């Protein structure tokens, strides 16, 4: 079976905040004052980030990952499709994973269907189409009423896929997006349609909807303790309940890493970027400080019964990833894996082994990490970590999932 697929995920953070940003009391999301945007410094920033993704393609990563965020310093891609479009022109092999377009934020889902179809054509069939419902911050960014977000999301996702597969024109008689003429021009290149990935955070209902449709489930959690393994088991069970079978490429996770020549050097080089990411980029999202907007009673998108279940286990004041106070706590979260190639290969290898995960979506550039360090880390990863992970995972997957054949992807170019 094919080895683990290694993707390079770029969030495109705003890296020019002052050192005392955290003390300012501002959130990093939704209300972060845009007077902080500095044109003198930000000129060329997108190019720098796009070049890092183009480097990932040349280094043999299996793909590049982008996603959509609004009004924050965590990710400067209100429209990831614009960056994806640039990537179609400066990359040649890797998949272009847009994970994803936030469907409930769109007035008309056909815009997403059209742009994804264009990207699939422009990239010669390299698109992986991600659909996401958006979280709490996007609720505030775009005034999306929370209570019907999920229903809107699935209606939009199903309409998009139908527009890729069914002959048009047809009429969509939907609750939220009724359309008289659905007739997609252009159509996507991949048949029957580009792979679809859906993020979730272990909610059973999302897993069930993903399983029903045969899509890939992506765990959006950033920390990888026992939960990742549990999510894999839960999803495998849901697939079985739907007459399907789990294999590693039905599942993906997000993680971050930094690789340098030695453990000490790795920590020394990345620490500033890591803390910038944890304290600034996660403020408002995965941090108690200020106001966390991602999940809670103010963004009531799960049904009340599900909220009751959540509340039973809820521990107010529980530390989130951005609340870690020292390096040891960070290491324990297994979110950002830092070290020499040997250390990183061992730790990520153990994660793959336990979680049986075939799609590893890895963030290299963190916070305000300088370009040359991000590039160095990516190169070391590609040269010294990736081969180990690929070899070990191929062996593991072949023995644990016999009889499951996945179309092999192009071999990595070192």
């Amino acid at each position: 079976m094919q080895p683990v697929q290694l993707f390079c995920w770029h969030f495109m953070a705003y890296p020019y905040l002052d050192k005392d940003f955290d003390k300012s009391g501002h959130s990093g999301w939704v209300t972060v004052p845009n007077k902080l945007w500095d044109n003198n410094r930000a000129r060329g920033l997108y190019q720098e980030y796009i070049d890092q993704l183009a480097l990932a393609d040349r280094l043999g990563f299996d793909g590049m990952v982008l996603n959509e965020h609004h009004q924050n310093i965590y990710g400067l891609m209100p429209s990831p499709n614009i960056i994806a479009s640039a990537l179609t022109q400066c990359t040649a092999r890797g998949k272009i994973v847009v994970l994803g377009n936030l469907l409930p934020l769109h007035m008309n889902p056909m815009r997403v269907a059209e742009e994804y179809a264009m990207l699939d054509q422009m990239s010669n069939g390299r698109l992986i189409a991600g659909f996401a419902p958006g979280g709490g911050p996007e609720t505030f960014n775009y005034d999306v009423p929370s209570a019907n977000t999920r229903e809107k999301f699935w209606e939009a996702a199903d309409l998009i896929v139908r527009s890729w597969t069914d002959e048009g024109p047809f009429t969509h008689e939907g609750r939220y997006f009724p359309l008289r003429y659905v007739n997609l021009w252009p159509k996507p290149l991949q048949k029957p349609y580009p792979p679809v990935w859906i993020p979730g955070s272990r909610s059973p209902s999302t897993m069930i909807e993903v399983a029903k449709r045969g899509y890939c489930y992506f765990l959006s959690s950033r920390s990888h303790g026992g939960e990742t393994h549990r999510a894999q088991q839960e999803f495998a069970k849901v697939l079985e309940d739907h007459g399907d079978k789990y294999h590693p490429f039905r599942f993906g996770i997000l993680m971050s890493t930094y690789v340098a020549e030695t453990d000490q050097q790795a920590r020394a080089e990345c620490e500033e970027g890591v803390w910038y990411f944890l304290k600034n980029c996660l403020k408002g999202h995965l941090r108690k400080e200020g106001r966390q907007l991602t999940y809670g009673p103010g963004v009531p998108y799960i049904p009340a019964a599900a909220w009751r279940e959540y509340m039973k286990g809820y521990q107010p004041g529980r530390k989130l990833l951005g609340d870690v106070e020292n390096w040891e706590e960070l290491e324990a979260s297994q979110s950002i894996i830092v070290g020499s190639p040997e250390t990183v290969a061992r730790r990520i290898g153990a994660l793959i082994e336990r979680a049986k995960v075939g799609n590893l979506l890895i963030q290299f550039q963190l916070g305000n990490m300088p370009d040359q360090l991000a590039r160095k880390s990516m190169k070391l990863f590609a040269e010294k970590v990736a081969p180990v992970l690929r070899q070990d995972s191929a062996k593991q997957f072949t023995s644990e999932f016999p009889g499951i054949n996945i179309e092999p992807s192009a071999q990595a170019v070192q």
Partner: protein
Amino acid sequence: MSGRILDVNGRKVWLLENGGGAPLLYLHGFADVHAVKESWLPFHDLLAKNSRVIAPAHPGCAQSDENKDIDTIEDVVFHYLEVIDALKLDKFDLVGHCLGGWIAAELAARHPEKIRKMVLIGASGLFVEGALIGDIFMNAQPEFGSSYATLREMLFASANQVNALAMFPDGKGEIEDEVRRYQMLRLSSRIGFKPPYFYNRPLRNRLHRISSPALVICGEKDGFVPRSHGETYAKLIPNSGELKVIAGAGHSAHVEKPEKTAMLVTEFLAK
């Protein structure tokens, strides 16, 4: 106090009923029966001395069925028309707080003939330029992982007063209380989040249709619905007196000053 399920066109509506006399339909807000507590508040007990108080839980609140077809305030108004039919109410007094006040005003503008007298307490629902209703959704997200101080500040005169802390405690309250608060926010997000926030722009120009006498009340320090909204209601409802401002109260005057507020309401209804 007795609670019961009312069947409304196949949907369950949970309601409390107490007292005797002329029927009084009470429509709840946030710091209120059904939305934070299972039982009546002292304010409702006081009203029940003179009226037959009927308080349904809004769709999706307490044990009332959720209704996924609710997109706008219009859908809630139709829901209540059916509730009124199911209760066989011909003409009744109508009292509403906050979101409940908004629903009351919308009902009264459409069916003035059904309402004997109307009371609005800290009612949302109006667009008043330059005086937006506050963002309860963002404030319902805890600060520092567990503090609801800014939410209490919106809903009460002070974040630290006893009744505010009892209804919206920091950290985690009783699970069922947490669920009630959540349900109320979930319903509110359907109708009060878009258009932003808690208003129906055309309502203002429909208020002249309300024919019943009306009493408009607000707290002195309402941090959620600005004073000008109460003033506008009082000015544009033809049979309304001056806005009554309850000293020392915030948005939830009926909770913070129950005797004073209940006395105003009772006197007005008895007049």
